């Protein structure tokens, strides 16, 4: 079920009522049943996989906790991780592996029908990471195992975060099942605000940009793309994927908040980052912290010397890229970020990464700040070219149009006059400007400001005829 459909909001009324009004145990049962219904709405056949994955981790974590033998604990952990990663690898990477070793029958139309119809179970990357984090936390004795399989399955299958995150940790979610939180007006206000902003970002910006970005990437093959149009392709996709995923996350967090749950934020104006390491504290934050805590630190982090630190960064980002999809272009995207992070650490440019409430002494500092933002922005969007391009050929051609073609001929600035859809970038710019005003100048995110923003989104959503809606991009990951 998708958040931008009428069906979902009818479903949500039922789910909200069940959670708020039934006795706690009944509410948990009803919410679990409804979450499974939510997941099964389009493809019920993968429900078993979800249940199996949850059962494996629930059982393994219980065995790990019950044993004091290091060997036994490690064996159970290895078994759980192998099973989880095995399922993920099988469903997600089989086509890529077959293609790479040339066993896909030539690919395209000549591929066998079972391979052509291969479907990755929706949300498998997200719920696998959630269940793995539970087992890893129990193994590290950061968390006591959950006493109820019902609660654990609800943690895995809770519908707001099931399909595309945020990747919530068991220790954040399970205590919220102990009792129902009171629903204050302020919580309702913020929850509704998050839902409205999320819907606006998805329905107006992401769906509005999608056909233009698609046609720009298609035009790369014909070579008929001016440098300005090439830059739009990259920046447009950056705005589209941000609006799509931040929109989805915003709705998920808002919906959960309206029910009384608190979930971690997933995005915080990522394109105003002044370093790549700061970017990763603002973009898909729940995935970043998962990779940091369970992979980067697990590999040794920065405790084993500089060379090992750079290698760990590279491995983490490579695997982070591969997590996004079964294509070598995702690996290239991850590698690019890994190398960027390593260079940044080597040069010491990552030190001022928090960026919150820094003093603003004058024009010089302000210019430097904007300059660093611009450098990171360009780097990130070069990465998006690999992320979005179907092949390396398309990516390199587009990069050539962006960086080499401007010195060889016309910039094609008339593209701007012919492209009213560029106005769709404005909400993304406004959102980042608002966050900058908050972080740099201390402007409060007041209720009055929320009213203004919500009204703007409601009017845009109501009056903007978006045409065909597109699936959330992160559903495919």
């Amino acid at each position, binding site marked *: *079920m*998708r958040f931008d*459909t*009428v*069906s979902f909001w*009818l479903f949500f009324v039922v789910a909200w009522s069940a959670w708020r009004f039934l006795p706690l145990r009944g509410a948990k049962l009803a919410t679990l049943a409804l979450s499974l219904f939510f997941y099964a*709405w*389009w*493809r019920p056949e993968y429900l078993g996989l979800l249940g199996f994955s949850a059962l494996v981790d629930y059982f393994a974590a219980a065995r790990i906790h019950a044993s004091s033998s290091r060997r036994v604990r490690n064996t159970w952990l290895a078994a759980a991780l192998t099973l989880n990663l095995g399922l993920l690898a099988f469903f997600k990477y089989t086509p890529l592996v077959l293609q790479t070793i040339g066993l896909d029958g030539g690919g395209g139309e000549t591929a066998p029908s079972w391979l052509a119809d291969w479907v990755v179970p929706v949300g498998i990357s997200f719920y696998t990471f959630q269940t793995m984090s539970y087992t890893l936390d129990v193994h590290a004795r950061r968390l006591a195992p959950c006493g109820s399989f019902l609660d654990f399955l609800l943690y895995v299958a809770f519908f707001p975060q099931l399909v595309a995150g945020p990747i919530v940790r068991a220790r954040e979610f399970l205590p919220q099942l102990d009792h129902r939180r009171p629903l204050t*007006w*302020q919580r*309702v*206000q913020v929850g*509704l605000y998050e839902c409205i902003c999320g819907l606006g970002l998805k329905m107006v910006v992401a769906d*509005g940009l999608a056909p233009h970005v698609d046609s720009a990437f298609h035009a790369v093959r014909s070579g008929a793309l001016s440098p300005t149009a090439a830059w739009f392709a990259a920046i447009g996709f950056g705005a589209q994927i941000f609006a799509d995923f931040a929109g989805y996350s915003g709705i998920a967090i808002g919906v959960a908040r309206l029910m009384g749950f608190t979930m971690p934020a997933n995005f915080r104006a990522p394109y105003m980052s002044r370093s790549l390491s700061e970017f990763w504290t603002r973009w898909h934050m729940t995935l970043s912290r998962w990779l940091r805590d369970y992979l980067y630190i697990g590999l040794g982090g920065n405790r084993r010397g500089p060379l090992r630190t750079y290698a760990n960064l590279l491995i983490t980002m490579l695997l982070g890229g591969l997590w996004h999809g079964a294509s070598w272009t995702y690996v290239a995207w991850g590698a690019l970020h890994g190398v960027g992070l390593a260079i940044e650490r080597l040069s010491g440019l990552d030190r001022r990464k928090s960026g919150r*409430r820094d*003093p*603003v*002494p*004058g*024009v*010089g500092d*302000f210019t430097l700040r904007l300059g660093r933002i611009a450098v990171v922005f360009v780097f990130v969007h070069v990465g998006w070219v690999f992320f979005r391009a179907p092949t390396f050929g398309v990516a390199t051609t587009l990069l050539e149009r962006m960086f080499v073609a401007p010195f060889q001929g016309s910039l094609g600035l008339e593209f701007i*006059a*012919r492209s*009213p*859809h560029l*106005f769709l970038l404005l909400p993304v710019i406004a959102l980042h400007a608002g966050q900058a*005003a908050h972080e*740099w*100048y*201390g*402007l*409060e995110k*007041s*209720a*009055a400001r*929320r*009213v203004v923003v*919500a*009204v703007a989104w*409601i*009017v845009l959503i*109501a*009056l*903007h*005829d*978006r*045409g065909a*809606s597109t699936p959330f991009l992160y559903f495919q990951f």
Partner: protein
Amino acid sequence: MKSFIQRLLGPVWPRAESRARSTNTPRTRAHRGFWLGPGPIGLTVTIAASLLLGWRVVADPDAPSTYWKFDPAVERNVDFPWSKSVMSIYGNADADSVLVVGDSRTSSAVSLRVLHREGIADVGVLWGALAQVRHLLRAARELPPRRLVVCLSPASLNSPQLPRLVHMLELERRLSPMQRIDRRLDDELDVLRQRLLRPVEINSWLRGRTAEDVQPRRQEGLYDGLLRPENRPALDERLAELQVELAAMRKEGWTIACVRLPAEIGVEVVENKAFARAKFARMCADLDVPFLDLFGGGYATTDGSHLLGADADRASTHIARWLRGLPGFESR
């Protein structure tokens, strides 16, 4: 040096923390009660409703812009779940309505609003981009017989389907029953929204303001390719098949009229070169079916093939007045 510049220029923007007052930390109890209670929600709803009401008043449904027609066309979207063809009727699908079939020219030229204003009240439009008229009629014949307007063009007699459209049709066929429910509910909401608010496709609306994107020759190349010499012999065969099919439909109880929708002069020249203009008129005369030829009417288009908003209204007015005079097509 840095401190000198700082003293000289001062902060870019004085730090606001000291000045900013949060409404979340209000000064009075009444103030607090408003912002921490349901007040902001009520305020949001009130302001948004007022703005939308204002838009509703300002947006004149009878004033098409240069680019788009302000047409609340999607009144209902009826799938043909029983059909092998996956198509939808926009407008009214009732048995006593007029069904208009054709390619994308039909969707841009036929304004349900104008037809309604001119007395043809209940109309449904069944169309597809580069759709073939034989496919459209196959889908239409699964409905009970009714009044039918067939929009004719050489490309809709015989042209290869674009791979992207084939892919889209394939995706449509694969929709599960649940996805169909989702789509149906979304359509119903959209219908309500169209009726209440008159939404606009903002890109088109902005284009309409500037008319920058109107390229009357854009599709000449496309039609030149679709109607290239090797495809032409099949046009006559298809025309003969169409004649047989329309004759059969009349026997089944359909009341039929045919229209040749206009295009830009360049596209009209391409079509006339590939397919003699008189052939459609001759077929209709043979069938004793009324035929309206709007070719050569000097209509303006966005891309050579699809009419601009005001010209779409002009064409729709012409069609409506013509239909009103035909036996069986008077509004019921």
